[in-house]
Structures are given as structure tokens and as C-alpha cells.
């Protein structure tokens, strides 16, 4: 069974095609990087995969773990059951600031906990233990009872990964998970995603701006330009010339030669330092 299957997916915002006949298949247990210049449609594609956005009326279909997410612009009625199998890691972490790290992680269980209990935030001892174990796995169980807002970006992102673990996700979608992090935190978060892929057998689709990191962590790379998949294959087959053209005139173009390390965007570095 394919972990992710996208066929003929299109999405038009106004007159602009954000996704244009996208086909994509991920086997269970694969780790794939999604690259492309800003505005190429990476986030839009990932958001279609978990059914946050609906495609065009004749815009193809999306299956995750063999279950329908959307078809021809209609979201599946039981999309929540499918989402429960997808761990989503966002660029801005999307944790709830005023809840503790543990509660944030336990929200990964909401799809399993009966609603009368979840609405009262009553989690059993076993469920808490599960949350703490996931936090320990990503190395931040010491902060379990602190509010999410009191933690660094890297720690928050690792909590988001812990949430996906608690969820029992079979697929992890990560939308630029390290774009707001400093190099050291970035490395930890990428290592964690690789571990989730290796130890838990999750299929991971991660969009990245840093091509060198994509090459370092993922055997397979999918590249997008103007909403179309323009490359899908082994990372080793990406030529510097292709990458150059992929990023066009952007500042990234000169940084994709294999040896170079991509500098973090200054704003992200400042945010991480603050």
C-alpha cells in the first residue's frame, strides 16, 4: 500500500495555478524531500495532503495510507480519521502557547480519546505516560510541564514531532520544519525526523529550502516549480545546473554547489537568538 498517492492534483487560486496536475507516490517508510523556490507550491501541496485545502473541482485526488483524503475538490467525509494517521509538522510549530508541552503532545491522542473525556482534558495515567515517553524520545521530557511558549523554537518543533509520535502517525508531513531554527536546532530536528522515519517506519515528506540538507537526509527528492513536479528521483541525480535553474535568480542559486553550506536566513537566526 502506498503511504501517499496524489494523482492529477490541481489547485487554482484566482487565475494562478498553485498546483498543476501533480502526481506523486510515496512508499511506506520512505523519506522524501520536497524542494522548490518560494511560491512553487510546496506548502499548498502538503496542505492538500491532509485535507486542509480542497483542490479544483476537476482537480484529481489524494489518498493517504490507502484512504481517500479528497477527490475532485471534495474533502472525504471521514477526513479526520485519515488525518489521525498524518503527523503534521509546521514551520511555526503551531503549538498552543498557553498549554503545557505535555498537553500539546497529548492532543495527538484526541482522535482516540472519547470526546466526553477529551473536552474535560482528562487523560489517563497510561496516556500521560505515552506523552512523556514521546517527549523523552525527542529529548525534552524535562520541560513537559512548562508552557509551550517558554521553550525555544527547536524544542517546540521537537514537541511537534513528539505529538506526531503520540498520534501513532504512519505519515509525517513537515512544511519547512527548520526554516525558523538555528543550525544546531535544525540538525536536531532533522535527525529526529530521520529517526521517526527509521525507527517508527513513518513515511516522511519534508519540504525544505536548504538543498544541502535535503541531499543530506533524503535519498529521494521531489522538486517543484510553478505548481508542477519538475523532478522526482534519487538525490544523486540532481545536477547543480538543474538546481540553479530551479531557484532561478534567487539568492539560493549560488549556494547549491555540493560543498557549500547554505546560510540561514538572517531573520530566522535573529529570531532563534532572541
Amino acid at each position, binding site marked *: 500500500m502506498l503511504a501517499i498517492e496524489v494523482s492529477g492534483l490541481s489547485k487554482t487560486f484566482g487565475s494562478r495555478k498553485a498546483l498543476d496536475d501533480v502526481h506523486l507516490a510515496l512508499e511506506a517508510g520512505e523519506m522524501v524531500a520536497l524542494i522548490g523556490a518560494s511560491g512553487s507550491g510546496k506548502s499548498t501541496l502538503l496542505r492538500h495532503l491532509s485535507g486542509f485545502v480542497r483542490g479544483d473541482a476537476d482537480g484529481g485526488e489524494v489518498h493517504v495510507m490507502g484512504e481517500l483524503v479528497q477527490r475532485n475538490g471534495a474533502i472525504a467525509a471521514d477526513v*479526520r480519521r485519515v488525518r489521525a494517521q498524518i503527523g503534521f509538522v*509546521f514551520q511555526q510549530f*503551531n503549538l*498552543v502557547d498557553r498549554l503545557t508541552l505535555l498537553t500539546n503532545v497529548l*492532543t495527538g491522542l*484526541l482522535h482516540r480519546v472519547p470526546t466526553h473525556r477529551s*473536552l474535560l*482534558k482528562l487523560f489517563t495515567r497510561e496516556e500521560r505516560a505515552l506523552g512523556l515517553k514521546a517527549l523523552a524520545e525527542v529529548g525534552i521530557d524535562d520541560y513537559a510541564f512548562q508552557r509551550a511558549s517558554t521553550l525555544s523554537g527547536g524544542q517546540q518543533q521537537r514537541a511537534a514531532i513528539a*505529538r506526531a509520535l503520540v498520534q501513532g502517525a504512519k505519515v509525517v508531513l513537515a512544511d519547512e520544519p527548520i526554516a525558523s531554527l538555528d543550525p544546531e536546532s535544525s540538525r536536531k530536528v532533522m535527525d529526529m525526523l530521520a529517526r521517526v522515519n527509521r525507527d517508527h517506519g513513518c513515511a516522511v515528506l519534508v519540504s525544505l529550502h536548504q538543498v544541502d540538507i535535503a541531499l543530506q537526509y533524503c535519498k529521494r527528492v521531489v522538486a517543484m516549480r510553478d505548481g508542477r513536479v519538475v523532478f522526482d528521483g534519487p538525490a544523486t541525480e540532481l545536477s547543480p545546473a538543474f538546481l540553479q535553474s530551479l531557484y532561478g535568480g534567487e539568492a539560493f542559486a549560488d549556494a547549491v554547489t555540493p560543498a557549500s553550506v547554505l546560510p540561514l536566513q538572517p531573520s530566522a537566526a535573529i529570531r532563534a537568538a532572541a
Partner: protein
Amino acid sequence: MSNTPATAMRAPGVDPLPRRSLHSLLVWGLLLAALAASWNGADMRPLALFADAGNMAVYAREFFPPDFTHWRTHVAEMIVTLQIALWGSALAVLCAIPCGLLCAANITPAWIHQPVRRVMDAARAINEMVFAMLFIVAVGLGPFAGVLALWVHTTGVLAKLFSEAVEAIDPSPVEGIRATGANALEEIVYGVIPQVMPLWVSYSLYRFESNIRSASVVGMVGAGGIGVILYEVIRSFQYAETCAVMLIIIVFVTLLDLVSSQIRKALL
């Protein structure tokens, strides 16, 4: 950047200043015209203040010294007033939570939030005194009518404030919750409520403060508490006692305002 073209495009010789002062002149002119037009309607007779100055002085003198003979009854009724305010506010907060969420355009579709908003507008538009008089007919004289009056009016006020807080939340944590396969209620409990909680608590306390003031007024139409006493002593020309009652109200309201605003500050 965006300023430069605008500056460059401004035609030479056209000074923006006269236009602005013309505008404010118009506003002031309208305000003065409205005041002048309302002079007769409001029965403005400033001279009466001077002509009757002697009477006023006698009248004012009758308030002093305040007569605290019945202070026990007054304090007891003041406590009833606080109890009215407390129950009225608590019930209103309870109702304002679902109503406020239903009024929020980012939570509910228009066919839900538009009608609920209109109902809340009505609850807010009508003063507590009016509700109190209506409820006295329904449930009889006494504090319960006051509680009902405060409840309905305050629900209307808080629902609006609560929904505005909900509309101003950051949607991304909610999306984070949604991504786990949570249902809509769970999205609200985990994603929305934690974000709005400090504001909601602050609004609720603020309304409790003003409900203490309102509760002493609804008493004047017979809805229980210190207002009933105030009405009686004024009507029977017992000005020294009126003064004592007013002082008791001032002390209680001020103290509770202070306490409540300390709590609000601590929460924000």
C-alpha cells in the same frame, strides 16, 4: 518606498493642511449644531442652579452628618446587591461562552453567527433597568428579578466581547490541533479557549465590577438589594440616611473595583 511616489505625485501648490482643518472644522461645527439643537429638548436651565442656590445649599446641608443608625440593614442589603451581581455575572459568563463562540465569524458560518449576533445585540441594547421591570412582572419583586435582568443584559455584552477575542486569535495553533484528527469541539477546547482565556477572564471581571453598580440601580425598581433602600429613603426625604447609604455603596463598589482590577492585572 510606498510613500515616495505619493509624495512625488502630489500636485505642487496643493497644501494638504487646509483640507484637514476644513474637515475638523466641519466635525466641530456639527457637534456644536447638535448641542444647540438639543438645548430645549434637554430642558437646559443653568440659571435655575443660581436662582435656587439658596435652596440647593439647604438641601445639601440636610445630607450631613450622615445617619448611620440603620447601618446593619444597609450593609446586609449591600451584600444582597453583591450577591445579585455575582449570580447575574456568573450566569452571564456561562451563557456568553457558547453564545460568544457562536457569534465568532471564524468559528461558525454566517447563517449561525448572524442570527445569534442579532439576539445578543437585542440583549445588549436594552438596559438592565428595563429588563428588571419586565422580570418583576414575571417572577415578582425581589433580588431574583435583578439577577435575571443582569444575566440577560450581561450575556449580550460579554458574548460580543468574547466573540471579538475569538475572532482575533492566531489560527495556526488551531490548525495544529486539527491536523491531529481532532473534532471541531476539541479544536475549540484545545486551540481556541487557551488563547482567549486571559481576555475572557478580564472581561468577565470587568463586567462583574460594573454589575455591582448596576445591581444597586436595578434595586430602585424593586429588584432587591441596596437599591430598594435607596429608593425608599430618597422618597421619604431622609437625606441623612440617603447619604449614609450612598457612602456605603461608594465604599463597597470602590473596594471591589480595586480587588477585581488587581486580579485582572495579575492575569494579563
